[in-house]
């Protein structure tokens, strides 16, 4: 594998990732993308197949397809976008007694979508850790690249509230959770529009 013929924006020994739309095969290939639990994660396949191209064209999101380096099969995909954690504006009095409006922000990258292609997993049932590999080889390096260009302190994700998934994000991906009290207060802000809240999980870049 020489540098001149290297595929994608990033690659490792066996896989590469590239912007959605970089290949003429993307539109066809994403139609075969599937998730293991459509009842729970069907939205991830739906986003890729029906919304991702529009968001890409509008710069609302950057979606990357991960492919097998040698067969070009679709292994997974992820979408990232800029974001932040911020306080609301508030007025403070400075040392001279003047009132100033201020707010605090922590800039970050949100992993808005992230899924492994179940069709590929079924073909390679012994290849455990494809999601972790995608995160380690592609997601985090891309976030680090963004951080080298523009202030970015955080990488975060909103995880579906299932214990097995949360545990995996903590153990294998090294994401952290907030204090329970703060999670509960965050979730209260969602009611009554949503039944359950995704869990905000983060890690420093």
């Amino acid at each position, binding site marked *: 594998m020489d540098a001149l013929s290297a595929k994608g924006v990033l*690659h*490792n020994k066996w896989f590469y990732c590239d912007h959605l739309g970089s290949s003429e095969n993307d539109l066809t290939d994403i139609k075969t993308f599937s998730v293991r639990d459509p009842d729970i994660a069907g939205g991830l396949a739906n986003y890729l197949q029906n919304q991702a191209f529009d968001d890409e064209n509008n710069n609302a999101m950057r979606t990357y397809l991960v492919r097998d380096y040698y067969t070009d099969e679709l292994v997974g995909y992820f979408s990232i976008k800029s974001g932040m954690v*911020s306080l609301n504006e508030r007025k403070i009095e400075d040392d001279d007694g003047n009132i100033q409006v201020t707010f*605090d922000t922590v800039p970050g990258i949100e992993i808005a979508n992230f899924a492994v292609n179940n069709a590929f997993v079924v073909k390679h049932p*012994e290849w455990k*850790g494809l999601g972790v590999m995608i995160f*380690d080889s592609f997601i985090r390096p891309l976030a680090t690249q963004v951080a080298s260009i523009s202030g970015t302190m955080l990488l975060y994700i*909103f995880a579906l509230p299932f214990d097995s998934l949360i545990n995996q994000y903590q153990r294998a991906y*090294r994401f952290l959770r907030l204090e329970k009290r703060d999670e509960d207060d965050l979730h209260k802000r969602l009611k009554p529009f949503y039944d359950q809240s995704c869990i905000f999980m983060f890690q*420093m870049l």
Partner: protein
Amino acid sequence: MATTVQNSKPIRFGKPSMTNLPYDLGSRIINTIMNSPKPDFTETDRIVSELMKKIDEERGAENGCVVSEGSSAQ
């Protein structure tokens, strides 16, 4: 035989907004974030290493050749 029809409503999952947080809650959250250590990827590296080794063995066995190291992320 009586049958029961269950109307299962799908659960709606929402993402909490992390912007424009109320001062008390937001201050606590930002404080937690700013005092968090950088991640230790020892376990992550182990999982990825095992996966790559598995693929090396499988594809090396398929092709009957030694696979050379690929380029790392740019």
